[in-house]
């Protein structure tokens, strides 16, 4: 399904980033990092007045030749980025949305862990498992 899933902190450093292991990890890092510009643009485009009832799902950030990059921003400005293969046409907006929702739920669980220090990189096994489940489905 997804080839890369990333969670980015409010301050734009990665909390979690994982990509399909066989592929070029560095490329995904660059891709995700660059997509943050679009995320910021989209957030600022909504405007402050609408910030409260803003849709968390940002939709397609930008397409590249091989991938599509989707974005999602939680209310605490934590960003989720999912990169999917362009060739994968079975994924519609709705599926992406539900993936993000799952990701958000799992992320909330991580945050609820009293031993998790907000701002640290996520090392939760449950989260990891959920992410791999989302990535495995593709292959």
């Amino acid at each position, binding site marked *: 399904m997804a080839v890369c899933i990333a969670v980015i*902190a409010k*301050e*734009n*450093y*990665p909390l979690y980033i994982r990509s399909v292991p066989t592929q070029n*990890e*560095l490329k995904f*890092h*660059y891709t995700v*990092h*660059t*997509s*943050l*510009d*679009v995320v*910021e*643009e989209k957030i*600022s485009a909504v405007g402050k007045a609408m910030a409260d009832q803003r849709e968390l799902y940002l939709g397609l950030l930008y397409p590249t030749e091989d991938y599509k990059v989707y974005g999602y921003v939680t209310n605490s400005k934590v960003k989720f980025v999912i990169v999917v293969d362009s060739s994968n046409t079975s994924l519609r907006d709705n599926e992406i949305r539900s993936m993000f929702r799952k990701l958000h739920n799992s992320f909330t669980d991580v945050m609820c862990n009293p031993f998790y220090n907000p701002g640290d990189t996520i090392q939760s096994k449950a989260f990891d498992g959920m992410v791999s489940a989302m990535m495995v489905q593709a292959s």
Partner: protein
Amino acid sequence: MAQCVQSVHEFIQDSFVPMVAVLCSEDAEKVTRKNNLNFSELLRPFCRLTSEGHMRDPNNQVQVVKNLRISVNNVVTRPSVPASGTPSLAQRLLLSEVVSTCQPAEGGVANVITAGDYDLNISDRSLKASVPWYRDWRDTLTELSTSKHYTATTPWFEAYRETFLQSMPAADHEFLNHYLACLLVVSSSEAVPVEKFLKLSQEQHRIQHSGEYTNPKWFIPNTLKYYVLLHDMSQGDEHRADSVYEDMKQRYGAQGCYLLKVNSRTAAAGADEQIPDPWSQYLHKSSLQSQPNSFLHPTANGSLVNSLDSTHPLQLDTSGDTPGSLDALRAVAVETKAGTAAAAAASHGACLTLNDHDRIRQFIQEFTFRGLLPHIEKNIRQLNDQLVSRKGLSRSLFSATKKWFGGGKVPEKSIAELKNTSGLLYPPEAPELQIRKMADLCFLVQHYELAYSCYHTAKKDFLSDQAMLYAAGALEMAAVSAFLQGGAPRPYPAHYMDTAIQTYRDVCKNMHLAERCALLSAEILKSQAKFSDAATLLIKMTSEDCDLRSALLLEQAAHCFINMRNPMVRKFAFHMILAGHRFSKAGQKRHALRCYCQAMQVYKGKGWSLAEDHINFTIGRQSFTLRQPENAVSAFRHILTNESQQASSQQAAFLREYLYVYKNVTGVCDVALPQLPLPYINSSATRVYFGHERRLAEGEKQAATHVSLDQEFDRDLAAMWRDLEEQVVASANRGVVPATFQATQCCLNSQTDNLRFPLAVVEEPIIVEVVFRNPLKVPLVLSDVSLLWKFTLKDFSRPQDATKQSDDIIATEVIPEFFLNPEETKVARLKLLPHQTGQLNILGLVYNLASTPSTGGTTVSSSAALKSDVRGRQDLEIQGPRLNQTKEEKTSVSHGPDRRLDPTITPPMPLLEVFFLQFPTALLCGEIRKAYVEFCNVSGVPLCGLRVVSTHPDFFTFGSSSLATPLTPLSPTSFENCSAYKTLATPPGATPGSVAAVTLVSAGDFGLGEGGSGTSNGVAEIPLEDRVLKPGQSTQLPLWLRGPDHEGVHEINFLFYYESAVKGGKISHRVLRHTVFICASRSLCVRATACRSNTLPEEEAEEEDERRNGSMLVFVDVENINTNEAGVREFHIAQVSSSSKQWRLHRCINPAEDKGMLTNIRGGKHVSCDCQASYCSNSVPLCLFSPLVAPQIISSTTPCADFFFRRCPPSDSRRPPVAVETQGRLSRSQGAGPGGGAEDLTSLVRKCNEVDLDIIVLWKAFVVEDNKQVILEGQLHVALQTIGKEACSLTQKEEAQEMVLLKFKPELPPPMTRPSMEQLSHLIKTNLHYPESYRHPFIHKSLCLVPVTLTLSNCSLAQVDVIIDLRHKTTSPESLEVHGSFTWLGQTQYKLQLRAQEVMRVPLRACFLHAGVYNLGTPRVFAKLADQGAMCETSQQTATPALIIIINDT
């Protein structure tokens, strides 16, 4: 986007200028050559017109031409670039050359762009016009031209663009860079100039019309020929020139010819005159262009380098890429050949005065306004007329064109043919091209409105013809002219551009044109602040075929991103990286490095470690290839110091690369050892240990544990040791701890107090433990690891630094090899041995760093180390603890000093080693064992004042030296079969149970302080011979140990204290620690109870009258509680001794004891041993030792007495009051009264129940050990305190286990309790004395009178009022019945007063009426303390039934 120097309009105008060709005679060429210039170059700086020109459009409207520039070029007949559109190799080389020579200025003003939370330092021009709109461009331009920094932001890009546009080949589908006019230049020195003119004119005609040459291209068939007569002022005849000019005017008309006079300066005159050199900036580039071969080597890459001989760039056309490349390059070269031939040294225009400059300028102006513009005007008019007439419809072009196309003209060629060939070629004079030609002419003279409509028309025309190339050209120019129209009547048609680019690229496959179009379009979009579109456009133009172009365009796109209203920093960074990549592929290393560095700013420190590592790695590599090894090293170091997430292979690669680069750096300069990034050193975890590393066991000797680096620091333990040390120091200084006291710290770590400089002793090693951590997934090998230090000799007046590793001052240990496995944390211990006194500073570590191949074999270590290892250092800098005392310190973050690594080396001190021999690890509770301890002075300084302090002073004793007893067995080997106890030489076995010898001993004899206060601190002086241990001397002492009273594992700590015999050193004393663990197992449990005996033994009463009062029964109950240990067979009680100040065990009254000396107690059994104790008073506070049972053992000596005195004192120490009491009792005859008024009632009453008797039970245990029976000995103590209360040898354990409540308030003194009835009932002891049987002849005498003595003894120390009531109680029927049979005669009630401890006998008489058995114990005794009036009398404990038998004696 990087700001350009030119404004957009200027840039576009300059991109398309009227082209003028030059044909020069040889003589004229010679004239100009004097200035190191050819004719076209001579004109070039003056080609921009400063004044406005005017011309009329076809509608006769006046059109102003501003700021026009013309381009003058020599005629080159070879084609530069084939029309295919792919840039030739030569052109590529040229462009690459231009870019690589154009580098950002070093140390330019930093340009910081703040974008979001990023501050980007873009090292280009800071002179950034933030609003690049048209209205500002002039200001910007003037500002720039006045400014000294005449470099642009991305000058390499502009240089590239300029060169690119200049090298654009003339195309067939457009006319913009076709020659409009031709200058025919002839020198006045020519013999017949007119003929020459004619020749040149014919030549021009031949070039244009013969068809031999496809290049250059000419705009219009009848090209404007302008005749220029060049006159050299310095040598020619001016009159002749004038006359020739007159002749020319006649021939060509005044507007078609010109006399240009140059070279008016003579060589002699002009040396001092400073003439500006306007050529340099124009010729600079071209001179570079002409010598590309000298630059190709460093920049060209790949196969090119191989094919390049250094001879000439023109010979490099090996690839057969494009046949035109040779010529193209030559074309460039030829253009500037003249200038460069001698240009190296001489300046340009040396023969020209300022007047000449003005003449040239005037010439250009004349030519343009009189010749060129009218020519263009005429041609436009002509073309317009032509078009109009051809359609024959209207004079108005605009309406005409509309109708023309509205009619739907069918193209002349068949549709099918057109569709097949997108690259349709119209013949040069085709009517479709005429309108385009006209549009181009209009465009060149800045008539953009007309140009636009023409282009627009042409576009439709071409499109309907499917002539895509032509259509794209028209679209491009339509868009440009729409943009350039002042006043903006229509918006800029961006989609025209897009279509044009697409068409050029996809349909025509002409990247060259597409690129030009994109460059124009991007520039226009940027000027309209449409950065996003510009970026997209630029990125689209990147392709695989040309790295340089892609790199430049990507860089521009990146700049676009950052100039957006919401700067897209990350996109900027990403595209910079892409650009850097392409630059490096294109061989532009410097630019690549710059791009990566700029991108780095965005990625740095944001947690994107993979990306960061990648960038750093690339920077490192590029820096290295650019010979900036320092930068390379620092970049690589970043990769290695950051917590890396890379795979191990990647890390290994990084490390290898780093080591390689590093080695090259250090090879160049070896001034100071550089810092190495690996492995990590956890400097705060560094531990420093002063002293030798100890060997714990040496044969059967067991060394004192002391402190070692293997121990973990324990705060509680440290406090305990500190307390012990304080105690021992206090005792050494007569009870006062000196103010300067500091606990000795042998091992310093992060938790110890490191504020002071630690003291180290010369010739004693200092061991530094460094914690290394390997953050990588590859193993590391350190070799030749040693400490780096600085030493200041204290002995010399001037400080002398000796950082060099000279072994005569300090011997430095070197660890030859130290492995660190992947991600391992490991400690290394490095030793220093100071040989001189002074101040030492440990600075850091030096080592060789190497990596092993990831295969990780152990055998490869040596070879790998040889292969790549670098030497470097790492400093140890320890931050002290955070200060948190004052307010300032609390509000700020400040750290105290940490002097762990700065020891002061002091003069030699004694060093003690302590060894223990035969030291047990397990003992029974109370077991006595003898061990030996050996003290050894291993230093060169005598040692004295040896003391020891322990947490368990009751555990050991050295014996008492003050007693005259010799220290028995001298050699420990003879110990085996010896008892620890000293036995009597001749046991008085004959009379067991008899009164044993009584020994008086004082506690002071056993090394303990008087009065018990000395026992509490547990400091013991060690009885050394001579009190001094000389260097190298060792002495052995016996040491008795006694198993702790409670079972379990006990940690027992010893602290040995010693001083130097030589006083006045910096270190006042030294200590040695020892910790043992003793496992104690249960042995016996002794319970003892004391009872007052009622009967007074007669013999005693006879012997000593005073002791009538003092008799007691002591019941000792011994239980074997060692149930779980199979090895212990049985216990024997060897002896029972007592120790008391007033009591002694008198005799054993247990009949069972009479049989044998020893009692066997098997597991779980009880044995009781009841003794009688008698009172004896002694005047000094000594203890009486009265052995009993089997008095074989001298219990009053070492070790028995030692341990007795060292036993844990009972919870309430009663000794001093006892002493007082003794005194009081002795003085009772003086009638002072015991205690006086201060004595309170309770204690007084209590005292009468107190005993102060300690029972010592000595036992033997038979233990089977390895099939051998071993006899163990031991002793247990029981302290009897109160009569009737059971005391146990184990009681204290239970007490200790009770939880102690935390109390926050000081405890109130317990309220004065009245003595209980129980206690008060013990005041008086009563005893009846009477004959046991009495014979009385009742027949003779009916009344039998028996005398009975009632003995009353006062147990207390106070006066007691006693009431004796002899009356029978009549209340109870039972007593009536019993007592009715006898009666007391005489006084029935007595009221007496007994003084303290007085014994009084009251004679009574009983009267019996019948024979029988009677109980005489009926008298009731009431007592009350004499001075307590309010208190009522308490009935005293009734005596046991006193039976009397009255026998009728008949």
